């Protein structure tokens, strides 16, 4: 088992015909992801990697049913594309970076109303190793296994997953939830899904400065039944500067790594100071 996506999940790619869309679709297909159709307005009838392209999601769904869409659509058109997916009852993975924050808020409000999962925006996507991938992560570093990973970052996730794989810890599902201030699925929602997944034995949270998601998650984790290990990037970040991710910023005294670490530790969650310590902590953790 895995969470959100597995080998049977049927997917649509929005923005399939673009440079990013077609490049990553090839990689996803090679990984085994079941991509049934693509959508790019005005490109109906084309084929990319053998996948038929349609003008609208409705047409695509008439061709073949799907559950989730992965979006490679420029920021200007992202809101409309996301609305189209959600209105047609699809879950959504938004890879697009630089979506206006007001648009992101509207997307999340609609997702809530429609009871749909949104991953991202500005994220590397989701992968259930050995089964399916929706996103842009490098295929070869992942290995099927029992560790769940939820992360606010991209390459840092690869770094840590790579160490996990090299140390023999495979992953059940890895989710990059995105680096923007407004994102869909967060740590708590991901943790709830991992809790129900029998194949996930422990969860790693990769957080960073900015916002108070880690603090809220720490509260939630007080009664969590599975081992959780956290890592927070940005211990040395100065106040008031955006560190690459739009959401990674210490505002006044809020959002510091120190506060987040303290909150986790108060809930009995171990926080690794260096990525390499995660492995050590996993080895020490008691889980079968």
């Amino acid at each position, binding site marked *: 088992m895995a969470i959100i996506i597995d080998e049977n999940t049927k997917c649509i790619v929005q923005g399939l015909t673009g440079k990013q869309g077609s490049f990553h679709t090839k990689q996803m297909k090679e990984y085994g992801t079941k991509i049934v159709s693509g959508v790019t307005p005005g490109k109906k009838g084309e084929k990319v990697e053998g996948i038929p392209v349609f003008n609208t999601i409705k047409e695509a769904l008439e061709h073949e049913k799907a559950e989730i869409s992965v979006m490679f659509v420029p920021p200007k058109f992202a809101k409309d594309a996301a609305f189209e997916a959600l209105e047609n009852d699809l879950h959504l993975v938004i890879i697009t970076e630089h979506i206006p924050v007001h648009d992101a808020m509207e997307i999340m409000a609609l997702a809530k109303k429609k009871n749909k999962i949104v991953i991202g925006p500005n994220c590397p996507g989701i992968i259930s190793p050995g089964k399916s991938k929706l996103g842009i992560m490098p295929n070869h570093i992942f290995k099927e296994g029992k560790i769940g990973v939820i992360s606010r970052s991209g390459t840092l996730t690869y770094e840590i997953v790579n160490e996990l794989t090299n140390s023999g810890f495979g992953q059940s599902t890895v989710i990059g939830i995105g680096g923007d201030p407004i994102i869909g699925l967060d740590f708590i929602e991901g943790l709830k899904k991992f809790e129900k997944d029998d194949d996930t034995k422990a969860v790693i949270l990769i957080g960073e400065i900015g916002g108070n998601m880690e603090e809220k998650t720490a509260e939630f984790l007080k009664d969590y039944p599975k081992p959780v290990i956290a890592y927070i990037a940005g*211990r040395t970040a100065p106040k008031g500067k955006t560190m690459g991710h739009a959401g990674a910023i210490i505002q006044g005294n809020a959002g510091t790594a120190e506060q987040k670490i303290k909150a986790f530790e108060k809930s009995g969650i171990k926080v690794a100071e260096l990525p390499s310590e995660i492995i050590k902590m996993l080895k020490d953790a008691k889980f079968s």
Partner: protein
Amino acid sequence: MEKGFLTQKLFIPVYLNSKGMKLKEYQGKEIFHDNGIKIPDSFLITSPEQIKELKGEVVLKAQVLHGGRGKAGLIQTATQEDAKQKAEEMFKKDVKEILVEEKVDVKEEYYLSITIDRTEKKAMLMFSKEGGIDIEELAEKHPKKIKKYYLDEEFSPKKTAKELEIPQWLIEKLYEIFKKYDLELIEINPLVKVDDNLLALDSKIIVDDNALFRQKFEKDESLTDIEKKAKEAGLSYVELEGNIGIIGNGAGLVMSTLDMVNHYGGKVANFLDVGGGADKEKMEKSLELVMIKKPKGIFINIFGGITRCDDIAQGLIDYKKEHNIEIPVVIRMIGTNEEEAKKILEENQIHFINSMEEGAKKIVELVK
């Protein structure tokens, strides 16, 4: 039940320092005025000579983006007699524009703003009858005196207006402006009562950077020179205090790299994220930017996914050939085309490290 440790402290999710574009006070007030929110009479000057005949006492307000204007002497009351001289002194402090505003007799000062609550994913209105001081200070001193409302489907401007004892139209107008101009923050602090009118005595507005394509604002001015250059080149750069230059790909990885160098006793000179799929040219540009601060060493940390390690290696070699870098450079790469990169670097006698931790240790050792 034990009370949550989080709920004890009020979290203010204000975008005080977001990467968004900050507007100067007078620019914000122009927006207020255009949308029917009253502001005091004022005019903008760019030299002391522009002060002619004043109707009465005025306040000179330097139009700069940083906070703490009062303490820095950048807000001063003046009269016809001393206005020119005071303005002259203010202009000497790296001030280019001054707003000359009628002095308003203030009885009550309120705080009113709309910003975005990241956790709730909603716009949020904040109001307090204790205006005039910084919202963070306010949250610290009188957390209970700040009222918060989420602007979602259940929000009622009518009910809120009644509770806060401010006009309903003002709440509606503020929210309309917030949406219309793609704002991350709109703040009136203080909002003052003069006779029966409410006046916006100051303005703080931050526009979402990502929405500038559909807004008519001029470009941001609150960046350092290097940060400006980085932005033009599509790189994410933050200037820091130390002496070890850092280049990496991906914000999280770069932050983690800074933390690691710091952990082993080094001091980092910058944050630089080359972004996804960076090429040779971006790498050369990155080196150029990092070298401006004359670091004592550089640590490059690349996890090759979309980014190809050989491109990054070639960028480094090309830059080194053209410019004489005499400081130690440690490069750590892993992922796509790692072997090719290794070959390029070895041919040029550059040491290549496989682990991020070893790389961090190495650069700290070399710089000491």
